[in-house]
């Protein structure tokens, strides 16, 4: 008990002192904004930075285009959910009230279609705070000290580990996730990832066309910048792209991520042809426009820039200039 109090006091003291003394230096060096990796096709050395800089996922323009491409099928977004049954409620509405209700449904749908963030993979935390040789061999187990103050964001919470060898180090990302789930449990998140995310089980799920269920569970279980999150998403997107099942994710919050993944790896031909098959010409044009923004050095972007192409012209340009990207072995 005394050890725990001492530990909590230690971490709180550490936090306040370290915050005051060292974070000033740290903050001045780190970037404040949320950043993403630059698209692989872009190169910024020796180019006109303003016009030809590749866009990131979080940019307003990109988000706008992706929201438009995702579409809004109210029947799919508000699909009946399996929950406790209640008797239905009937309301009599005038025309204006009906329009208002439809408008509200639209705003609620937009909230439900908000895309999860696409972030660069988090760098591992390997930092030793202190090496106390006199504590070596005190105990065979590691001690983890977690700051459980309520009103601080989880990413500002100090979690430190005292090894049996006496080193005091910051906890790694996996340890952090596990401990935060212990002290501040989130709904439906398990301490160990469920067996659904193993290769064999994922294949079964893909065979049953339940990609949206896999990705939804992934959103619940993992943090957006963790390696597992990226791995599961990559596998799902690969399977969708291989079998051309783009329509499974259309009009869900997961479609934007799929489109961005395909654009980053420069493989939009399958998606384009699927869109054109379903007569979504405007969506196809937006997709090509986004591709040009993301890869300003590619042939189609340069030609489009030359011809000042827009609309169907963009599609013509990309059909002429599209090249299969080299296989990454």
């Amino acid at each position, binding site marked *: 008990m005394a050890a725990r109090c001492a530990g909590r006091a230690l971490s709180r003291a550490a936090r306040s002192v370290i915050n005051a003394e060292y974070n000033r230096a740290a903050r001045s060096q780190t970037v404040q904004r949320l950043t993403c990796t630059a698209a692989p096709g872009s190169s910024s050395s020796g180019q006109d930075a303003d016009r030809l800089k590749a866009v990131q996922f979080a940019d307003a323009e990109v988000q706008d285009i992706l929201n438009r491409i995702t579409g809004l099928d109210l029947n799919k977004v508000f699909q009946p959910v399996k929950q406790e049954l209640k008797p239905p409620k009937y309301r009599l509405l005038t025309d204006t009230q009906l329009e208002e209700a439809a408008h509200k449904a639209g705003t609620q749908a937009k909230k439900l279609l908000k895309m999860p963030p696409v972030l660069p993979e988090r760098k591992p935390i390997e930092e030793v705070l202190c090496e106390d040789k006199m504590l070596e061999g005190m105990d065979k187990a590691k001690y983890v000290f977690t700051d459980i103050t309520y009103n601080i964001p989880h990413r500002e919470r*100090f979690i430190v580990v005292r090894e049996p060898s006496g080193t005091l180090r910051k906890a790694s990302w996996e340890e952090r996730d596990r401990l935060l789930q212990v002290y501040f449990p989130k709904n439906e998140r398990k301490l160990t990832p*469920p067996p659904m995310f193993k290769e064999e089980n994922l294949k079964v799920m893909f065979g049953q066309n339940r990609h949206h269920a896999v990705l939804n569970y992934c959103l619940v279980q993992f943090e957006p910048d963790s390696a597992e999150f990226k791995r599961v998403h990559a596998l799902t997107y690969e399977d969708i792209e291989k079998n051309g099942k783009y329509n499974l994710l259309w009009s869900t919050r997961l479609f934007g991520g799929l489109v961005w993944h395909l654009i980053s790896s420069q493989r939009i031909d399958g998606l384009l042809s699927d869109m054109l098959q379903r007569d979504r010409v405007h969506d196809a044009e937006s997709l090509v426009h986004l591709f040009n923004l993301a890869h300003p050095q590619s042939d189609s972007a340069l030609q489009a820039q030359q011809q000042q192409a827009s609309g169907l012209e963009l599609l013509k340009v990309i059909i002429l200039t599209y090249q299969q990207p080299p296989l990454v072995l």
Partner: protein
Amino acid sequence: MAASIRSIVRAPSRFFLVLQRIHQTQVTVGVLRAPVITPVIRNFFYSSKLLNLESSEKNDHGVESLKDLSRYKDKPWKYLESEEYIERYGSKPVWANYRRNHKGGIPPQKTRKTCIRRGKTCGNPCPICRDQNIIIHYQNVSLLQQFISPYTGFVYDPTRTGVCMRQQKRLNTAIETAKLHGLIPTQLPFVDYTGEDYSNSHGAVAHTPPPPSKTPDEPWYSWYGSIEPNEHELARVKKIYKAYLK
């Protein structure tokens, strides 16, 4: 050895003890005049459960040995496509034609604890225990789905399906495992990503510069070291607690 075990048995069965001793003496005489009751009692007494001290799995032994003999032991889902199953159940769930036996109009709110005790099945066993080939396994999804409501996604109450409590527990764990493996769809909460900062710039998760190097003599913090108390404060506190100080 056997006698000491028998002496541990409960008092009401001492009556049967006496009867058994009588039976033994009768048999040694060589006359087959064994009364009708004794074979049953002998079975009861000479059952492997009493004499076998090592049997600690008293619960599942009876149930699992019956299901182990089934030909669908390795692939329980095959049974649900077999002719035998279709002939017996058709397209209805396995619990559709089962009716519990109980006194009065309102059934007890819990079904029986178990249908099979020590290898012996009760009368009117539950829908899972009565069929040797129905095996509860997390991969046997079509069987598990029969016990889940298609509208709410909840598992049916045992008072509705009639399964015994032991099988209901096994059913619940199997359904949970199947959900973890993704074989049965679950309803997941909506994850809201607004208002979260993913820059990882805070010292808790980012690199913090090491402290300026300290010589071993210098204290870690500048305010460590001898702190002298205020004279007046010290005198005041001493005066208050004078009775307790040495």
